[in-house]
């Protein structure tokens, strides 16, 4: 670059810069609007289709001319959606609570003490994140069968008693907990148990809430493990229910979209209410 072009650039700089800036911004909006459309439209289309009466299901209009809840009535009659939603809720809440407790206990051990093999054990816990369920599915399935739990929803909870993500995020959060506070509590004679539950946990509400959201959503959306174990619709989760409308003989689009909407609604409502927090918790899990 010569000095000539530099000075030339500097003279016309402000005017050209402003125009360029506006164009850039316009272009940025265009890109993001296209992406937002791509991301949101399928969800919108799911809801719209679910509201179309059976004879208008193939219509391409953006809003149904005669909105009706027929598809919902049909779906509720065809499969036990209510029981499935209750099962899914029970499982998601239980898994979230249990993973938080086991994660907090384990993280506390790693942060509070140094002991033989602590680093290796931590690494082994984190590495479970890289072991896909497909690899261990047969032994896991055989174990559940041996316990006689194949048809019960307890089997859907058991393998999720602890997760690498919970241990990792909580260890990171506890490491940044001020050491002086921990020391002071110990000087006051607080037991480890009290130190964890009465001093550290109340100060980690943000991290715990984020983690709870992450675990809840991923358990709600889980598909593979329930697919392996589901025997009867009544003991199954809602993700398996959706699949029942897609058969080899054909797909019932209206009820399928109604069931999909019902399965997504709790999560979408959670997202509407806690939008910032949800995005934040996913970002945290990714950034660390």
């Amino acid at each position, binding site marked *: *670059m010569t000095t000539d072009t*530099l000075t030339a*650039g500097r003279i016309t700089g402000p005017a050209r810069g402003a125009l360029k800036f506006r164009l850039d*911004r316009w*272009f*940025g*909006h265009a*890109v*993001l609007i296209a*992406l*937002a459309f791509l*991301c*949101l439209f*399928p*969800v919108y*289309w*799911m809801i719209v*289709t679910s509201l179309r009466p059976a004879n208008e299901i193939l219509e*391409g209009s953006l809003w149904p001319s005669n909105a009706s809840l027929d598809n919902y009535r049909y779906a509720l009659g065809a499969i036990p959606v209510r029981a499935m939603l209750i099962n899914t809720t029970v499982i998601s809440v239980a898994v979230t609570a249990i993973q938080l*407790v*086991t*994660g907090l*206990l*384990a993280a506390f*051990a790693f942060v509070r*003490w140094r002991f033989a093999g602590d680093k290796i054990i931590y690494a082994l*816990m984190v590495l479970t994140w*890289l072991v*896909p369920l*497909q*690899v261990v599915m*047969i*032994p*896991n399935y*055989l*174990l559940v069968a041996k316990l006689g739990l194949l048809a019960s929803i307890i089997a859907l909870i*058991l*393998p999720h*008693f*602890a997760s690498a993500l919970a*241990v990792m995020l909580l260890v990171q959060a506890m490491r940044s907990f001020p050491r002086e506070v921990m020391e002071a509590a110990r000087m006051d004679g607080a037991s*480890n148990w009290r130190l964890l539950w009465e001093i550290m946990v109340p100060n980690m509400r943000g991290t715990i809430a984020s983690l709870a959201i992450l675990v809840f959503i991923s358990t709600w*959306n889980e*598909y*593979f493990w329930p697919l392996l174990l589901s025997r009867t619709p009544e003991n199954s989760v809602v*993700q398996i229910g*959706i*699949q029942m*409308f*897609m058969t080899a003989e054909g797909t019932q*689009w209206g009820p399928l*979209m109604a069931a*999909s909407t019902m399965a*997504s609604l709790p999560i*979408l409502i959670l997202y509407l209410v806690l939008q910032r927090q*949800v*995005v934040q918790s*996913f*970002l945290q899990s*990714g950034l660390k």
Partner: protein
Amino acid sequence: MTSTFTPSAAPRLARRGIARLAPWLFLLPAALTFVVWVYWPLLDAFRLSFYEWNMLPRSEPRFVGMENYANIFELSKFSQALKNTVIYIVGLLPIAVLIPLAIAIYTQDLPERSRNIYRAIIFVPMIIAPVVAAAVWRWLLDPSYGLVNNWLGALGFEPVRFLFDADTAIWTIIFITGWKLIGFSTLILSAANANINPSLIEAARMDGASNWQIIRDIRLPLLSSTILFLTMITILLGAQWSFAYIVVLTQGGPLGSTTNIFHILWDFGFSSLSVGWSSAAAIILVLGFGALAFVLLRLVDRYSFHDN
């Protein structure tokens, strides 16, 4: 303190014993879960990979040595699954890393408020269940009634059999997998991009650096650890993410064109009921991805060090 007299020594020793046990007690619930549901099953899969067994109640596992490994490598289905696994990963990288990177850099100057709205919207696919995403895209892409083919028809194109054509099906599954991810990657890269100190950019601009030079010499190096992280999780988990779409939408077909290593494990195990084959494939998967993870983690280590 010197006033330790004998009577209290015994309880103190006991207390010290408990103190030494304490960390292990706190670790126990999590550790037990991982041993029972991950590490023991991993060993068991290794053992089962040397047996022939169909899981039926009255049959006994029969030791066959390395036969399962030899057999699955001769199956064209298996080599196709390995090949497709690579296609899935390579196909996902642009959607999970490159496009989000471009978007993150291009949209950095937008005002805070509109950025937050976009952010909220492009995040929606991330929280949608894979089964729901599969159902909705199956509907949108249906060859006869789907909206996408309606639009294509209106533009004068022949209908595309997205999920039923052996040439397009794998790309359709990659697209759906990417649809779920793109918002997440974009947000992570935008957040990292926004963390770059603006005075660095300002200083470069004062020195007459062009936009492209700023991106190449300042932004990309400072984003390298985030880019590497996203690349790493895409390589390690990308093929796994597409599993639900394969099972719900194509069952590996048409003609095996969409199967991958994760799906073939499922297929061997619960469709063909061949525990040995499934376990042998599982061990190959673990060794392959384990080696990959080792290399990638070392790379990430080096780069994040350089970043600090």
